[in-house]
């Protein structure tokens, strides 16, 4: 697992993809941050910043995950991984941790933005902290979705577009609720909605249910990825 993790990390930096991810993430987050807080005049309210960042993730996270498995499959290098003494779960976990490390480190770097708040405004440190934890959890869920979709196809573009679509469904599900009258559908939509669970963190509340939900999403998609590989081996 460690070998796969190390190789993935290295491949982010031997190809442009890692730099593109970090660059786009930092530039867009800085831009949105300045627009939504200091420039908007509501100097210390970061709620809209974090909400918008969720949508930015739908674009940048596929950059990290689109080639994880699709490229291995296309270039047949997965034959090496699958005939090595590595468990399927170890293989999936190694790739997940590499993509997630990229994501988390870049997010932590983007926290430099908050320096401006401390200099010119009156930020609520607890709230920022709660948001950061929520962002890191949502990121884990999205990365695992991206890895799962990458394992379904040999084509990076399809993997990327598919990931964007699924992430948007997760984000937008609760918005559809306004237009739907059937209770059962609304219950399902709000259950899968990543966004509605994000809300409690806004108020600085540590929502244990939400944490469990994000962990479950992450776990389920990693498990499904393992299952995809098992199924392909046995079919």
């Amino acid at each position, binding site marked *: 697992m460690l*070998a796969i993790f190390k190789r993935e990390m290295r*491949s982010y930096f*031997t190809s442009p993809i890692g730099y593109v991810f970090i660059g786009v993430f930092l530039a867009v987050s800085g831009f949105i941050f300045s627009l939504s807080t200091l420039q908007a005049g509501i100097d210390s309210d970061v709620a809209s910043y974090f909400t918008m960042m969720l949508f930015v993730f739908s674009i940048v996270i596929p950059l990290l995950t689109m080639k994880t498995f699709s490229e291995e499959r296309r*270039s047949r*290098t*997965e*034959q*090496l991984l699958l*005939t090595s*003494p590595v468990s399927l779960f170890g293989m999936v976990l190694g790739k997940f941790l590499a993509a997630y490390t990229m994501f988390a480190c870049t997010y932590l770097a983007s926290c430099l933005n908050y320096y401006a708040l401390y200099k010119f405004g009156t930020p609520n440190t607890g709230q920022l902290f709660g948001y950061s934890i929520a962002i890191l959890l949502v990121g884990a869920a999205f990365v695992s979705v991206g890895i799962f979709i990458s394992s379904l196809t040999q084509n990076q573009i399809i993997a990327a577009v598919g990931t964007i679509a699924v992430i948007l469904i997760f984000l937008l599900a609760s918005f559809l609720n306004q237009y739907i009258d059937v209770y059962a559908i609304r219950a399902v939509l709000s259950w899968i909605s990543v966004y509605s669970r994000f809300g409690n963190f806004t108020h600085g509340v540590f929502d244990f249910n939400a944490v469990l939900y994000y962990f479950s999403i992450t776990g389920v998609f990693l498990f499904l990825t393992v299952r995809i590989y098992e199924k392909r081996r046995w079919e």
Partner: protein
Amino acid sequence: MQTCMINIDHLVKRYGNKYAVNDISFKVGEGEIVGFLGPNGAGKSTTMNILTGYLSYTSGTVEVGGLDIIDHAFEVKKMIGYLPEQPPLYSDMTVEDYLNFVYDLKKCTFNRKKHIMEICEVVRIADVYKRLIGNLSKGYRQRVGIAQALVGNPKILVLDEPTIGLDPRQIVEVRNLIRTLGLDHTIILSTHILSEVQAVCDRVIIINRGKLVADKRTEDIATAVEGNRRLNAKICGPQKEVLSLLRAQPGVTSVEAIGQHDADSITYLIESEAGVDIRKPLFSILAKNNYPIIGLEAVGAGLEDVFLSLVDAKEPTTKARKKTVRKRSSAGGV
């Protein structure tokens, strides 16, 4: 008695209702070099993929080093070095990074630097050690692929078409390499080139459409194939006399004039009985009559001929078996 390294017993792999591998059984002893011969789509790669744990199988048993490949997947995978049909290379890595990655992946516990350098010496890739794999030529890539299979010093090497796409000189090099490796490894290699098997392997297993057609020592395959020997002879002299002379030779089964390419010589196709070498008597009788031989070549048997002869040889036995079964059942009825 050699210890049995690979034991494949009644292996079946089915995709839907199509059999990719249909009831194949064979054993490979320690230190053997076995050639896996068959046309494209015969099930060579599938069998190798199963053996290395990349694919599962529908039924049967596969044991490597006495261990079942499903129950002891980890131990078995450590015992096997695999070069798939398309070498599993990351084009964005250098040879150095790649081999170190494989070393970690296989959880080896040797002296890392020494082990990797030794492998590079054996497959002769030391001069491209620092280069990106994506920039290497096909021959070097193939050798990096073999190097990858050697990492961890596995007892068994499974090489899927190791010389495909190489130029003639590289083919000779890779064959020599395989022979060298064969001194301390058990090797299974697949190919659809008969001469490759003859050049490298101790034993040949031929499969066709997922079924095992033959499992013989390489020398036996050669004689099995030759059966009737055929010669192309270019002889000067009047066709009629030469023909009657040739036909009178003991051992000759048929002679045919197949063409006249220049003014005074005619090419004949001569078939002789198995095990009779008619070249020397041919020379003396023609020389005595002053009909010089200006060209003589053996007509080689291609893979197609091997198949036809082996498949044909097999058919009657299965028919015979069916007959006996039928007889037995009818006898039971009485």
